[in-house]
């Protein structure tokens, strides 16, 4: 099973990278509001049980992929096509 983890700076946490991107986009003439910069981690998980896989990826997020003090995360699971 494949999993995609989206790690974002938590709401309310200052994101200087996002601010730099935002002002660059404005300089290019784009009408943008707030921009926030995070990170994407694509993973292959051995488990094919969605609940088990999600629980495992959650543990990965807590222990390594995100720092819960400053980052939030979202997990998307892509189930393999059934046969």
């Amino acid at each position: 099973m494949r999993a995609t983890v989206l790690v974002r700076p938590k709401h309310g946490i200052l994101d200087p990278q996002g601010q730099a991107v935002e002002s660059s986009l404005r300089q290019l003439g784009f009408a943008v509001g707030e921009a926030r910069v995070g990170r994407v981690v694509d993973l292959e998980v051995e488990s094919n049980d969605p609940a088990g896989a999600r629980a495992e990826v959650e543990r990965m997020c807590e222990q390594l992929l995100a720092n819960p003090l400053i980052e939030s995360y979202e997990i998307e699971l892509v189930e393999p096509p059934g046969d």
Partner: protein
Amino acid sequence: MTSPQPRIGVLRFPGACDDRDALWALSALDAEAVFVWHTETDLPDLDAVVLPGGFSYGDYLRCGAIARFAPAMETVAAFAAEGGLVLGICNGFQILCEAGLLPGVLRRNESLSFVCRDVPLVVERTDTPFTSRCAEGERLTIPVKHGEGCWFADDALYDELETSRQIVLRYAEPVNGSRNDVAGVVNERGNVMGLMPHPEHAMDPLLGSADGALILSSLVDAARDRILAGV
């Protein structure tokens, strides 16, 4: 030489770059400084441990996030849990925060720019093994060189640290966007400290300042006291 001579380990991670300066500085202050490779699981009878600056494991993912899983770090955590003295400098501070041995986290500088200059610091506490040679409110000049030195704690954590007096050093002027200009913190027990400035680079007035020696010689004193106390 003042006896006994404490033995202080300098942990070496791949990507470290200030390990030799730390070793030199501690030796110059009469400690027996020895390198400890990151794969070691036994600390060779050490009286203190220093985690030096650098870019351990390429700073992948987040600074210090990978180094915290180095085999030697488990031993360092056990050493700290027994009251052992641990000092993390720059990347070492980042590693200790990621490992949960120190509160807070170090983020990209607010300016997004790497900062490399001498900075003025204020000593907030002198009753720690790392600042005993300083005076309260004393201003020190010690260089920083980091891209990710913006220390952050949320409101609840910050208030808790203020109450328990865990903030030991502050910048006397804004440097990197750190919350309330925090430059160095200790754990609750006071035996683990991290700081972004580099005391090992401020060892001689010829190089701009010898104030770093106050921090490192405090550590050497405290390590010696532990030997004398039979710990």
